[in-house]
């Protein structure tokens, strides 16, 4: 692979995936560190981070949801780089399925925040938005059979 402006034009879905998963990785890592450190979130845009990140729903079987997010974004990021470098045939399919699960997870957690916790956390909404965008990008990519 040659890194050039030309390759960015043909590989724009991958570029988007890299961008979204990178931001998502930063966001989820931050939430995970805060979760373990039990610090207060400097949450300026919405109120309720404290409620959300400290709720009983913030872990699943002892694993913080934010950490699952870290793994997901890390996977998307590394898989996209891997695909650009090595062209694994099945990678686009795997990405669709994985990001679809992440999308469902996000739906579930956003509904929890709206209807059960009645509190919204900006960092969590951002993560849900990013995983939705990742899912849409992978679907679009497969649908149009882009390179």
């Amino acid at each position: 692979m040659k890194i050039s402006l030309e390759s960015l034009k043909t590989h724009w879905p991958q570029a988007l995936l890299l961008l979204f998963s990178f931001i998502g990785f930063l966001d989820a890592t931050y939430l995970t560190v805060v979760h373990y450190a039990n610090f207060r979130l400097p949450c300026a845009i919405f109120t309720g981070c404290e409620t959300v990140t400290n709720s009983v729903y913030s872990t699943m079987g002892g694993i913080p949801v934010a950490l699952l997010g870290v793994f997901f974004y890390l996977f998307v990021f590394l898989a996209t780089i891997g695909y650009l470098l090595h062209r694994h045939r099945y990678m686009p399919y795997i990405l669709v399925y994985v990001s679809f699960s992440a999308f469902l997870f996000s739906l579930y957690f956003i509904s929890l925040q709206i209807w059960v916790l009645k509190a919204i956390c900006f960092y969590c909404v951002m993560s849900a938005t990013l995983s939705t965008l990742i899912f849409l990008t992978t679907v679009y990519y497969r649908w149009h059979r882009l390179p």
Partner: protein
Amino acid sequence: MDKQAATIWTIVIIVLTLIVVGIVALVTASKQPTNGVLSLPVQVDDWTIGGANATTTISLVEYSDFQCPACAFYADWTRKLILDIPELRLTYRHFPLTKIHQNADLSARAAEAAGKQGRFWEMSELLFTNRDKWADDNKAEVIFSDYAQQLQLDPAKFTEDLNSQITKNKVSQDLESGLRSGVTGTPSFYLNGAFINNPKTYEDFVRIIEDALAASASPAV
């Protein structure tokens, strides 16, 4: 794997590792000052007990969680303290550790709801002494209603207050003031507004309070 791919992978792994280390360092650096000074003085709507007949009083503010075993342990001491030290005014504030205690918030609201009918301290005692019975119960609300009955509270009003927004706000206000005061765990005590480490024995607790009392009672003229 060609050489360029190997280089890219190496750079990616190094950059990601650096980012994680950076975020950990940033969050650690922004750590709020640990327990120091009480951010919110005792308010009229706080739950305060003791010191009614004393001319000089000393204030002990406690941030606590009904589902926390250490809090239940210290609650026995604070109940005894207000009897032993007539000058002591004890204030209870909620600091529900909802991350680790599923009924922390609900139990705090149950005490608030009982307080609306004048039985806050009685409900607190019931909650602390029966901690094991409701701590991991998914239907703790039923148990709390039973306690309300034992205390001869109006059941309809109790349920209404338990779920009211006012009660929820009261609990989160306490939590907020605790966080601003640097509370990281429960129970946390503030003696005349200054954080004290949890005394190891009841006698230590009495001594710390009496020392502070002696200091405030004999001001340098």
